[in-house]
């Protein structure tokens, strides 16, 4: 991979130039927080952000999208709709990068999802190295997502007055040469990058009390753990945790018709396993009725089920679910509590 150097002023110019040909989506201020949104002015781009309310999955799997349009009368027919356009996802942190790598697997394996994959194909990813922990909620270091060596086209590291730009793909190379002004990194730049990365690492703390690789087996033995009832008592079943999760991808599909009832759209919208009706069928049976069981399902998906299906843990340690939960349910504290009783139970 090539290492290039771009001055900060030149980075603004790069973003500005990209806006002519791409929808550029990056972090912006939103009240006291940050959110990913389309950049209309390079000055809006806040690469100094800590974290965002929603993860960048909303660009690749929008909260709501059209899957098809249909005509009901006469000779009824359904026509697919693929909502995609050239996009640069600019400034995403490595936790979210790991999450997108997982979503890529989810939507490409077995039955490929053309809607997601076409958006993904048209998206260039420019990621950004975190040099400071975002806040007390994140646990990226424990989940091994503090850095990334794949999943991006370009990867930026702030070196002070310049950005070090790691060029990982041909698309990234083209983007940089066509829209930006960059020079090849000198030995001094490479040394400076190493120094910045080595200073960064100790600033982040491990928040899991054990190796994340133990999660699948640990959870496998924790199906009847008392924690689930405790969480079920506190959970309000609002679905915020899954909405803000960068790896939650479950969805609902429904139809909307016009007033004349002659034509309509088939829509897909984010859904949440935490909501009461998620596993209920028309006959009235609800196969995951208790909130305790729904919280257990979320923990199991993040630490076990997704790993078993895709070979990657379903949690990247971004901390968003912990940060957003009005009932203060923490997946890190939950994992640690299970680990503590597991260790205690073994008499160790």
């Amino acid at each position, binding site marked *: 991979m090539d290492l290039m150097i771009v001055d900060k002023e030149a980075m603004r110019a790069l973003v500005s130039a990209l806006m002519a040909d791409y929808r550029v989506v990056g972090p912006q201020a939103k009240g006291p927080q940050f959110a990913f949104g389309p950049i209309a002015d390079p000055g809006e781009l806040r690469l100094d952000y800590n974290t965002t309310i929603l993860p960048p999955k909303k660009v690749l799997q929008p909260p709501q999208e059209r899957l098809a349009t249909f005509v009901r009368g006469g000779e*009824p027919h359904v026509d697919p709709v693929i909502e995609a356009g050239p996009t640069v996802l600019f400034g995403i942190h490595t936790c979210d990068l790991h999450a997108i790598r997982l979503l890529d697997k989810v939507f490409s394996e077995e039955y490929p999802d053309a809607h997601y994959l076409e958006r993904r194909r048209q998206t260039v990813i420019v990621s950004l190295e975190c040099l400071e922990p975002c806040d007390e909620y994140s646990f990226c270091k424990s989940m091994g997502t503090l850095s990334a060596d794949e999943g991006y086209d370009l990867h930026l590291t702030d070196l002070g007055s310049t950005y070090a730009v790691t060029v990982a793909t041909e698309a990234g190379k083209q983007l940089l040469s066509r829209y930006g002004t960059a020079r090849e990194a000198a030995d001094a730049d490479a040394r400076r990058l190493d120094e910045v990365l080595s200073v960064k690492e100790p600033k982040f703390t491990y928040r899991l009390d054990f190796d994340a690789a133990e999660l699948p087996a640990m959870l496998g033995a924790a199906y009847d753990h008392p924690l689930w009832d405790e969480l079920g008592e506190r959970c309000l079943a609002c679905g915020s945790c899954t909405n803000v999760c960068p790896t939650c991808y479950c969805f609902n599909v429904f139809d909307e018709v016009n007033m004349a009832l002659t034509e309509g759209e088939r829509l897909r919208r984010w859904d949440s396993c935490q909501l009461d009706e998620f596993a209920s069928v028309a006959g009235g049976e609800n196969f995951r009725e208790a909130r305790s069981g729904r919280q257990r399902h979320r923990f199991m998906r993040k630490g076990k089920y997704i790993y078993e299906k895709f070979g990657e843990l379903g949690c990247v340690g971004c901390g968003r679910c912990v940060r957003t939960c009005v009932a203060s349910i923490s997946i890190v504290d939950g994992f640690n509590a299970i680990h503590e009783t597991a260790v205690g139970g073994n008499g160790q």
Partner: protein
Amino acid sequence: MTTSIYIPEMARLVDVEPVTETEKLFTIELPDGRSLGHAPGQFVMLSVLGVGEAPISITSSPSRSNGSFQLCVRRVGDVTNALHAMQPGDQVGIRGPFGNGFPMDKMRGRDILFAPGGLGLAPLRSLIGQVLDERDSFERVIILYGAKRPGELLFRDELEGWVTQDDVECHFTVDCDAEQWDGDQGMTCNEGVITTLFPLITVDPRNTIAVTCGPPIMYRFVLMELLDKGIPDTQIYLSLERRMKCGVGKCGHCQINNLYCCQDGPVFSYAQIKGVEEAL
């Protein structure tokens, strides 16, 4: 044009027949007389445009497809109520077939014991038809079928046909109102839940494959009867129902712990799910 796995193909209702007060049998043809190409036990995602999409098991056997397939549907939710209002000639959307279906290769050469309850006969009928059309490939065929009331027994004509077949052993029961049973041709109907039929039969447990489907409350009692007869858990199959929005392992609704009902199922052996707490 990029193809999307979520786009249904329009198919025509060629026949709509009432089965009970709440169930109808829909015969459906794909364009150009194309076969659905399903296996017994699979399901389709059925769309009524403007209302939505729902998973429905295929009730006809591949051996009787004749360029069409059948769905036996209870009027219970938005999509199924809308479907019940449709007429021959109307069009529905079809995606699939999806799911694993029954393991036919493991079943051939064996005694087959069917134990459906109520609407659970609908998915099992695809297998019963296939077994009867390949009758020489199987040993004994036993059907124990129960419903709440006589009027809720599905496919009365076919039940009567099975009774008259020397190579099919049938026992029927209803939870109550058995006196309203108007079967003839030697048909009798027991009164009591489906478990009351099991003492009427003896089986060779090593050579028997049991297949059951019914309301959630039924499974545990039927499983106890089957295990009591000595049938190994690897030879007991269940077809499970779940909410589904995609049918292809993405939407998450049908997950049963780590299993996806739409892809890993809907047919599971009891051995496969007896440690899976969310299964029943």
